[in-house]
C-alpha cells in the first residue's frame, strides 16, 4: 500500500510544490554557487600521496614478479612522510606502510560504504575482497599522519 496517497491530494501536493519552488527561487544563485565551490577545500588537511610506481607501466619487471610470486600488480604511493606499498594478489590487496608503523586505513570506494582496517604494528594490512570499482586509501597514523591516495582501479 502506498502510504503517501492517504496523505496529500492533488491540491495539497501542488501547494507543497509551489512552496518548495518559491523557497528555492528566494536563494540567490551566487549563494548556491559559493556553497558548491567550497568543496574545493575537501580533505585540505590530508596530504595527497602521489603514484610513484605502477608495475603495469614497467612491463619487464611485471613479468619477473609474476614468475616468482602470485603478485598481479604492484603500486607505490609516496607522500612526504610515508610511503604506501600495495600488492595485488589473486584475491586480496596487500599493503604496507613504510616506515613501518601501526596505521588505520579507510578504504573509500565510489560504489560501496567505507570500510576501516587496522594495520598490524609494522604497518601491514590486507584488503579483502579487492574493491571492484574505483577506490582510494585514506591512511592515518600517530603524529598526525593523514595521507590520501589518488583513485585506484584494479
Amino acid at each position: 500500500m502506498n502510504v503517501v496517497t492517504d496523505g496529500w491530494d492533488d491540491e495539497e501536493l501542488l501547494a507543497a510544490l509551489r512552496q518548495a519552488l518559491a523557497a528555492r527561487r528566494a536563494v540567490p544563485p551566487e549563494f548556491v554557487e559559493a556553497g558548491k565551490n567550497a568543496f574545493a577545500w575537501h580533505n585540505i588537511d590530508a596530504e595527497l600521496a602521489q603514484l610513484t610506481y605502477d608495475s603495469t607501466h614497467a612491463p619487464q619487471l611485471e613479468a619477473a614478479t609474476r614468475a616468482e610470486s602470485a603478485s598481479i600488480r604492484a603500486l607505490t604511493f609516496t607522500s612526504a612522510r610515508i610511503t604506501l606499498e600495495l600488492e595485488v594478489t589473486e584475491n586480496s590487496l596487500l599493503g604496507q606502510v613504510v616506515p613501518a608503523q601501526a596505521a588505520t586505513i579507510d578504504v573509500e570506494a565510489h560504489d560501496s560504504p567505507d570500510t576501516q582496517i587496522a594495520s598490524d604494528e609494522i604497518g601491514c594490512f590486507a584488503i579483502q575482497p579487492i574493491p571492484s570499482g574505483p577506490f582510494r586509501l585514506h591512511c592515518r597514523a600517530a603524529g598526525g599522519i593523514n595521507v590520501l591516495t589518488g583513485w585506484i582501479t584494479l
Partner: protein
Amino acid sequence: MRDDPLVIAMVNRAARGDQGAWNDIIERYSPLVWSICLRYRLDRQDSDDVGQSVWLLLVERIGMLREPAALPGWLATTTQRECLRVLRASRRHEHAELPDDQLSPDPGAAMIEKEILAAERDAAVWAAFAELPRGCRELLAMLLSDHPHSYEDISATLGMRVGSIGPMRARCLDRLRQSPHIAAIADGARDKQARGERGD
C-alpha cells in the same frame, strides 16, 4: 525523516570526495541556510559570510558526521551560531556600550525547529520534482507560476492539446507522489499526526 536513506547516501558519497553528491547537498539545503539568515535579518553581505562559514565547516566535518541523517539539524544550529557571531561582530562595532543580550534579538529554538521542518519538506518536494521527466517539470512550473497561465497559453508553449493538460497534470502529480523523496516526508508527517500534533 531523520533517517532518510537518500540523505545518508548523499552525505556518504560527498564524504568520499564526490562533488556531484556535494552539489546535491548544497542544492537541497541552501534554502535552509538562507532562510535562517533572513530570520536573523542579515543583509546580503553578512548572509554570504555566514553561508561561506557554514559550508567550509561542513566540508571539514562531512567525513565525521556520526549521523548523516541529522545533517539538517547540524546545518541549522551551525547557521544560527554563525548568524549570531556576525551580528555580534557588526553591532558591537556600532554600539560598543551595549551588552550582547540587548543586541541580538534571537528568534530562538522554536523558529529553528520550524525552519528545519519546512526546509526538509521543501527540499524533499523539490528533489522529487527535479527527478520528474522534463515535460512534467515544464507543465507543473507553468501551472504554479506567479503569473498564472491559461490552458491556451500552456497548450501553445508546450505544444500539447488543451484537452490533455488536465490528464497530464494528474499523471505528473501521481508520479511526484510516488517519489521516494515524498514517501520519506509523508512518513514523517504521519508520525507527527500519530503524536496528535497538527501540521501547518
